[in-house]
């Protein structure tokens, strides 16, 4: 096992956990508003998949996407500033938590309507295939999204035209408060891919190394021109669906069992046990991540707010709607 990869994964996992904890705190302080969907428990999915991807690959994600942006390389300052609605945010304060974008890093968002990521991803994939580009698209979605029409529509087209798309299911077993057996007739998402003749498999989404390896294999398949692939990552979220969720539909026992499989803890333990990293290295990584998050919060607090309401609605705006409104009858 490559030590630098392990160190990178560990840093990403710790950063992801600490960043989301800080976001929750800042939300409680009233500095972050709106809907805030956090990722603790699911870190191995974004980290494992995105570290197996190339920088040239495109990423299309959902509203639970802070960690995807961070792993892609969007600076924590820019992500936190976006959550604060500040002008230095990665969407300049116009998108918020659910709409992070970083075009330079091929991070295409940030979609808050469940099921949208499928069609955007096949569009990017279509363009890549049409032009014979070597890059792929990573398309993220939850277990709840697979009952949306676009899942079926888009998987069909992706398979039909052999588009270079890796569909990554973040199966955290819940669609807000509805457990997967109560929302899906077939609860194993990967099995649905066979309807489109698509390669698929399920991987332990709490094990970042397993996710990383499965993604590498899947992307090899995709890049070889074999068409799309569906990778189901079985995972859990430790917090409620969003900050608005009191999380009353899961038992304490269920949560305790999940936490015992903590993916961040799991990687740390394994890396130490295998001798891939030393205690000192782990500490240094944790310190570095903590400092990055603290710096991000400091930055976001001090960053300016965006001021312009009417920018970027159109690339080429045409304003025909400001005729002088006459205050009173003019002589005529």
């Amino acid at each position, binding site marked *: 096992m490559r030590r630098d990869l392990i160190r990178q994964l560990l840093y990403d996992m710790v950063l992801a956990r600490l960043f989301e904890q800080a976001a929750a705190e800042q939300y409680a302080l009233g500095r972050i508003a709106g809907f805030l969907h956090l990722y603790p428990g699911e870190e191995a999915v974004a980290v494992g998949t995105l570290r197996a991807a190339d920088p040239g690959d495109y990423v299309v994600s959902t509203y639970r996407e802070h960690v995807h942006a961070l792993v892609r390389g969007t600076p924590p300052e820019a992500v936190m500033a976006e959550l604060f609605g500040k002008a230095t945010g990665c*969407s300049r304060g116009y998108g918020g938590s659910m709409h992070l*974008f970083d075009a330079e890093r091929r991070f295409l*968002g940030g979609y808050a309507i469940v099921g949208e990521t499928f069609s955007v991803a096949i569009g*990017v994939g*279509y363009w890549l295939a049409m032009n014979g580009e070597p890059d792929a698209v990573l398309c993220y979605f939850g277990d709840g999204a697979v009952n949306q*029409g676009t899942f079926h529509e888009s998987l069909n*087209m992706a398979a039909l035209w052999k588009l270079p798309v890796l569909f990554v299911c973040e199966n955290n077993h819940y669609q807000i408060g509805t457990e997967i057996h109560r929302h899906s007739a077939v609860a194993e998402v990967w099995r649905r891919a066979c309807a489109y003749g698509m390669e698929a498999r399920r991987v332990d989404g709490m094990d970042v190394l397993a996710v990383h390896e499965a993604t590498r294999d899947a992307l090899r398949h995709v890049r070889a021109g074999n068409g799309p692939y569906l990778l189901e990552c079985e995972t859990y979220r430790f917090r409620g669906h969003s900050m608005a969720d009191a999380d009353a539909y899961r038992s304490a026992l269920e949560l305790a069992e999940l936490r015992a499989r903590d993916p961040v803890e799991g990687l740390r333990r394994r890396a130490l046990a295998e001798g891939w990293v030393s205690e000192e290295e782990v500490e240094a990584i944790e310190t570095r991540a903590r400092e990055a998050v603290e710096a991000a919060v400091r930055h976001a607090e001090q960053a300016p707010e965006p001021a312009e309401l009417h920018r970027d609605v*159109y690339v080429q705006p*045409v304003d025909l709607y400001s005729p002088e409104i006459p205050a009173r009858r003019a002589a005529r």
Partner: protein
Amino acid sequence: MTGSRRKREGGNLGLVAPAEPRPELMTWEALNIALDRAMARDESVFVIGEDVGLYGGSYRVTQGLYAKYGEWRVRDTPISENSFTGLGVGAALVGGRPVVEIMTVNFALLALDAIINMAAKLRYMSGGQLTVPLVVRTPGGVARQLAAQHSQRLEHTLLNVPGLRIVAPGTPQDAYWQLLQAIEADDPVVVLEHELLYFEKGPFDPDAPPPPMHAAAVRRRGRDVTLVAWHRMVGVSLEAAEALAREGIEAEVIDLRSLRPIDLPLLLESVRRTHRLVVVEEDCRFGGAGAEIAAAVGEAAFFDLDAPVLRVAGEDVPTPYNGKLEAASIPDAGRVVAAVRRLLGRERPAAAPAPRAGGERT
């Protein structure tokens, strides 16, 4: 399917229409030439939709393109409107200039997530990082007894969406110009086409310099009243203007051409001369484009108006199948004439035909 009635000479073996000036050309040919031009000069332009390829398009608009440009640039899709429109959005984000054909606006209702939630929002939500140079072409309007699910107009839905541009070409020349401009535009543009205009003819010059995509056009000069319309209702208004002229009433007829934005300056210039405005609109009256036009003109030119702005609009009913009732559900020249007479206080001269009954009102 809406296009199935017409005769197909040539079918999928047909060629792209030749791009040369002609005294008369049909709208579908003008659109066909525009697509061919755009695809020939820019490899990022591609066409996608149901039966646009091998079949040649429900209204022949993509005829010959499949043979010329191949299946990646002229892609037949499954019946998955929301996803293939979303595919257009995704491709537009990374360098493509997709032209999505949605067979009719009635089916575009299934793609509103891609159009409204995505195409119209992504530039703004991303803080200006992304652009969505997407074109959605879609035919609509009351055609010939296609009944309520196949006769809708979508202006009312799309008008209220900042981020979109909406054009409504009513002549072959405008169809050609505005489709080319839509493809060149960096913003998402919905090109609303009218099903009954595809086989209407008009003069055509592929090299004539176009007006701006959003500009309205005066189709007839007049001093007594301004009629504003788009698509088929321009023809209806011109017909009404002819009839009014015989009564000594000179109506100005404006073809709006664009519904977002609306060329308000041109409308106001006209209304300040005629002091009266009638909006002639095929879409249903309630909450439609006509309401926006009336409000905008009322705000800006209240003191120039000698009468309230009137709407002659589609009746607020689902479109009936029965042919006589269908005709009664949308404006015709007689109703426009009646409205103008009412506006001018010259109701019912002895020789005039009675206006068509409006039917039940809600």
